[in-house]
C-alpha cells in the first residue's frame, strides 16, 4: 500500500503540495514513485511562471517517462537541485523531497486539491 501523508494537499496527477505562507512546495506522492519505479532523472524547470495544470518538468525511469503537472499557478522560485545528482531521493522519501517551490499567485486554487483522506480514496480506486 502506498503511503499518503497527512497535512498535504494532492492533485489527480499525483503531485503533493505543502503550503508555507505565500509559498507552495511541490513533490510527487509515494503512489507516483511506486508507479515509476527507479527514477533515473528529474527534468527541472526554469525559474519562470507556471500555470495550474501545466507541465513543469518530467521524471524518467529506465522504461518510462512521466510529465510533472503543476498543481498551482505562480512563479517557480526555487528548484531542488539535489535531485539532479540524486534522483533516487524521490524513491527513497517522496514526501521528504520537494521538487519545486512556487510563489503562489492564486491561493484560492488550493481549494481544488484533495486532502490526504480524499487522495487515499482516489488512489484506492
Amino acid at each position, binding site marked *: 500500500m502506498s503511503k499518503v501523508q497527512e497535512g498535504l494537499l494532492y492533485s489527480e496527477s499525483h503531485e503533493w503540495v505543502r503550503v508555507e505562507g505565500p509559498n507552495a512546495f511541490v513533490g510527487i506522492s509515494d503512489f507516483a514513485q511506486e508507479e515509476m519505479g*527507479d527514477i*533515473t*532523472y528529474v527534468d527541472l524547470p526554469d525559474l519562470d511562471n507556471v500555470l495550474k495544470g501545466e507541465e513543469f518538468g518530467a521524471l*524518467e*525511469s*529506465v*522504461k518510462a517517462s512521466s510529465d510533472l503537472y503543476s498543481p498551482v499557478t505562480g512563479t517557480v522560485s526555487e528548484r531542488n537541485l539535489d535531485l539532479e545528482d540524486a*534522483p*533516487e531521493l524521490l524513491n527513497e522519501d517522496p514526501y521528504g523531497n520537494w521538487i519545486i517551490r512556487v510563489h503562489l499567485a492564486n491561493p484560492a486554487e488550493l481549494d481544488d486539491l484533495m486532502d490526504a483522506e480524499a487522495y487515499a480514496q482516489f488512489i484506492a480506486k
Partner: protein
Amino acid sequence: MRYYDKLVFELSKPGRSGFSLSQEWADAPLDLDPALLRVEAPVLPEVSEVDVVRHYTNLSQMNFGVDTGFYPLGSCTMKYNPKINEEIAALPAFLGLHPLQDPETVKGARTVLDWTDRLLAEITGMKHFTFKPCAGAHGELTGLMILREYHLSRGDEGRTKVIVPDSAHGTNPASAAVCGLEIVEVKSNAAGLVDVEELKPLLGPDIAGIMMTNPNTLGLFEKDIKEIAALVHGCGGLLYYDGANMNPLLGAVRPGDMGFDIMHLNLHKTFSTPHGGGGPGSGPVGVAEHLVPFLGVSTSGFHGNFGVILRALAYILMLGKQNVHLAGRLATLNANYIKECLRDAYKLPIDSVCKHEFVFDGLIDDGACEGKAGATTLDVAKRLLDFGYHAPTIYFPLLFHQALMIEPTETESKETLDDFIAVMHKIAEEAAADPNILHAAPHNAPISRPDETTAARNPILKWENEN
C-alpha cells in the same frame, strides 16, 4: 555464445597499424594554416589487421541473429534473410556508383529502382513509390509530409490533426509530431479493433487523416476498414497505412484496395532484407494516383538506401507470382498455430483468429503465492534466452500490462515451432513451480541481467583511457 570483455581501444599499442596504403604522397604536408588543424591526433585504436578480425569475431559471438535461431520478435518480422540478396548487394558495379552520376551512366541502378517501383505497386495496389526514406519511421514521416502537402495544395490549411489508434507503434505519434501534426487518439474496442463509434465524433474539417496498421499491433485485422475508409474520406481526410505489419497481407490483401492513399513498406521486414543490428532498413513510400505529384518530397540526401532496395528486388524476383501469395498465408498459419498450442498456459486476452502475430497477456499461472512474486513477462522473455531463442516483443502494445507479442514469420518450420511451443510450456511449468528460476534468468547467456538503473543515472557513454 561466451563472454568476452575487450574493447578495441584496450588492444591498442602505439606504433601498430592495420592499414595498407601506397607510399605516394603519404607524408605530404597539408597545405593548410595550422589554425585550421586539430592540436592532437584523435585517439583511435592502433591495432593490427588480425587484432581487428579476432576482436570483432569475438564480439559477434555474443550476438544472436536470425541465422543463430528462432527470433519471434513481434512487429519486427524477423524472417530468414536469403544469401543471394547479399551477393547481389555486393556486386562491385553497384557499389562503385556515385549518387550524383548522370542518369545515362547509371542505367542499371535506375532499372533496379524502376522495377522495384513497379513490382511494389502491384503488390500493394499503390501507383508509385519514393525510395528516399531509410527506415519505417522515416517512411511514416515522409508519407505524412505528402499527406500535409496534399491538403496545403488545395488551400485546405485547417487540417492539422491526425488520428492514431491507442494500439499504434510509438513511431506513429512521434512521426506525426515531427511533421507538425497534432495527435488525436482513438480507442480500441473490447475486440482490440478501432472503435468506429469512437471514431465518428473525432472526424471533421480539422482532420488531415488517420494512421492505421492493418493488421494492427495485436495482429488483428481491422475488419471495419471499408467503413473507416469511407468515414475518413467522407470528412476530407486521407488514410495512411503503416506497413510494419504488411507481411501477412503479402500476396493476399493490398492496402490500395482497402482504400489507403499513402503507405510505407519496411523492406527489412516484409521483403527479407537483414536488420543489421538495428539498420540499415528502407522505408519506401507508395501513394495512390492522385498523390503522385507530391512524391518528390526530399527527406534524405540521395536516392535512399539503394543497397537495401537491391536485396528486396532480388527477394521479389525469387518469390515471383508463384510463391508470393503463400508468404503472407504461411506467416499467418504459423502464428495461429503457436497461439492455439500455447493458450492453455498463457493468457489470451482476445480470442480471435490472428494474422502474422498475436499478443498474450502474461502467464495463466505465474507462481505467485504468499510472500513470493509471480513470474512476469520480462522473466519469461529472459528464460527463453536460456533455451536458445530470442525473446518475443515485450510490454508492447500498451493495452495490456504483461504483453508478450509473438511473430514467427513464414520461414520457420513446423519442427521449429513445435520445439518453441514445448519450451514455452516448460517455462510455464517452471513458473508455476518456482518463479525464482525465471526471476534469475538468463542463466547461461554471455551476461546476466545488467543494472540498467545505474546506467541511466550515471551515464558512461564512451571509453576513456584510465591510464
